[in-house]
């Protein structure tokens, strides 16, 4: 087999793995958008916030320590204990649920029946607010996150491919885990929305508020639930990205990477988010591999957006999105 082709295969595989992580973030967007019609700009920041909270709890960091120290002149930064990853994840989830409740109680509840653009603006505000809170709570330094996920080259794949192609593929174990987790997450989410009482209620609310009320569904409860689920997805995404590239504020920028993914896949489709993520992941890696050297590299920074732009022109509803029909 020609060498170039083998390299390309490795690139594609790596692209798929990266795509899964994009898809994870996009999934959070789709979920909230479907259930509430809100495009949640803060989804990326929520992932960052979740990851920071997780690291903070695991390290026994004192929240708001700078603030406390500044006011009281103290010098506490850590409680002096380490929390096991599993418990820390549960605690973080509890924080995310609390966050969801706050978002609903203090922001969204007051914006019922507002234009989508107002809601969108609100989430932009939320994003900056949350970023500030995260900074204040846990500090702005880059931290590493290790919840015990396997990392590093997968030796089995390396050996197997070496035996076949005479060249070992470099596939990160973490990427494999991310893929599996993403698959499980999607299955769980679909099962939740299709087969549970709460899932049914969630779909009902997304469809028609008035009708949902008339069958006894509390809108508040459902929205808190939706934001909690989005928080859960953000936590998963935060763990994956954080483990991969450290917990830092640039993490919130991955939210922007999710945008082209959504344009490709459609804002309302869960399979769309996955396929879109994979296409962007593979596309940008492959483009960098094939065209990158000709144009001086760093194509990964803009390729996804150009691809999304092209899509917007030819298929504005995305690959799987519902056709946009404006009724006159």
């Amino acid at each position, binding site marked *: 087999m020609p060498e170039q082709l083998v390299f390309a295969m490795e690139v594609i595989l790596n692209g798929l793995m990266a795509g899964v992580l994009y898809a994870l973030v996009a999934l959070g967007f789709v979920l909230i958008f479907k259930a509430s019609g809100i495009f949640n700009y803060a989804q990326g920041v929520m992932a960052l916030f979740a990851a920071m909270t997780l690291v903070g709890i695991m390290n026994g960091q004192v929240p708001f320590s700078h603030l406390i120290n500044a006011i009281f002149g103290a010098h506490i930064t850590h409680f002096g204990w380490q929390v096991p990853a599993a418990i820390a994840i549960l605690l973080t989830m509890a924080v995310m649920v609390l966050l969801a409740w706050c978002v609903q109680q203090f922001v969204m509840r007051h914006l019922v029946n507002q234009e989508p653009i107002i809601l969108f603006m609100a989430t932009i505000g939320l994003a900056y607010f949350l970023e500030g809170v995260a900074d204040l709570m846990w500090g702005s330094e880059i931290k590493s996150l290790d919840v015990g996920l396997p990392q590093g080259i997968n030796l089995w794949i390396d050996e197997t491919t070496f035996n076949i192609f005479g060249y070992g593929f470099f596939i990160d174990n973490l990427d494999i885990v991310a893929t599996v987790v993403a698959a499980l997450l999607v299955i769980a989410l679909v099962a939740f929305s299709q087969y549970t009482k709460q899932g049914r209620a969630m*779909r009902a609310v997304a469809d*028609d508020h008035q*009708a949902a*009320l*008339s069958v*006894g569904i509390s809108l508040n409860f459902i929205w808190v639930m939706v934001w909690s689920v989005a928080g859960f997805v953000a936590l998963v995404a935060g763990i994956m990205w954080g483990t991969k590239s450290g917990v830092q504020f640039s993490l919130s920028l991955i939210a922007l990477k999710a945008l082209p993914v959504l344009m490709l896949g459609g804002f309302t489709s869960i399979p769309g988010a996955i396929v879109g993520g994979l296409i962007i992941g593979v596309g940008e890696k492959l483009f960098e591999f094939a065209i990158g050297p000709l144009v001086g590299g760093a194509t990964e920074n803009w390729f996804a957006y150009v691809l999304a732009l092209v899509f917007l022109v030819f298929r504005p509803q995305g690959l799987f999105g519902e056709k946009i029909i404006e009724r006159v």
Partner: protein
Amino acid sequence: MLDASDGYVTEDGRKIGGVVMEMRNITLRFGGVVAIKDISFDIREGEIRAIIGPNGAGKSSMLNVISGFYVPQEGEVWFRGAKRPPMRPYEVARQGIARTFQNIALFEGMSVLDNVMTGRLNFMKTNIFQQALWKGRAEKEETLNRAAVERIIDFLEIQHIRKTPVARLPYGLKKRVELARALAAEPKLLLLDEPMAGMNVEEKEDMSRFILDVNDEFGTTIALIEHDMGVVMDLSDRVVVMDYGKKIGDGTPDEVRGNQEVIDAYLGVSHD
């Protein structure tokens, strides 16, 4: 007038029971506009009660007060012998008051079956973890709810559209699906907001038959709003007539028909 305490027997021999719902001196204002002015009436168990009046008389507002979508500034709502505190619509629904809407509020993206199943949400008691395992209680519960829904689907003759997305249905069928969803909740009081609006003669006859059959078969107490006088008079046991937010008549269809104020409201000074 009617005896206030024990109920009565209708012309066709149905026994009407005690008071299920009572509105006492309800006044509802939107800003400076008075939509309902000091209205009192009751709804008795097993009866078909109509609220009629010209457009803008405040009928829909009254229905929205009963179903909790509006909270009146003055007056009391009594339901099943207890005074009802101000409630949100979903709490009212959970109390056993189901409703339909004049402009049809269905879950357009779901199938007919899923729509009707949402009417059963309050009958699903298992929690999310039991459901996640999908065993035992949760499964049994789902089966029972499905069976209840199937009876209603059969009753309203919508078997052929069970799996059809609601968005694809014609208007008349959507109205029937909405009724099915309300019935699925096994309501103690069923509110119908202009169930015949926008229908042709044949569809109206079908709908009337279904309303009568529902009352007959399940003994459901029904309160409905309608401005088609003819339909209402055939259908209901007692009628409240509203005009300009005031009650101008209350009684059996015959009594109301002979009421001079009602005749004036409908024939003399119409404000359509």
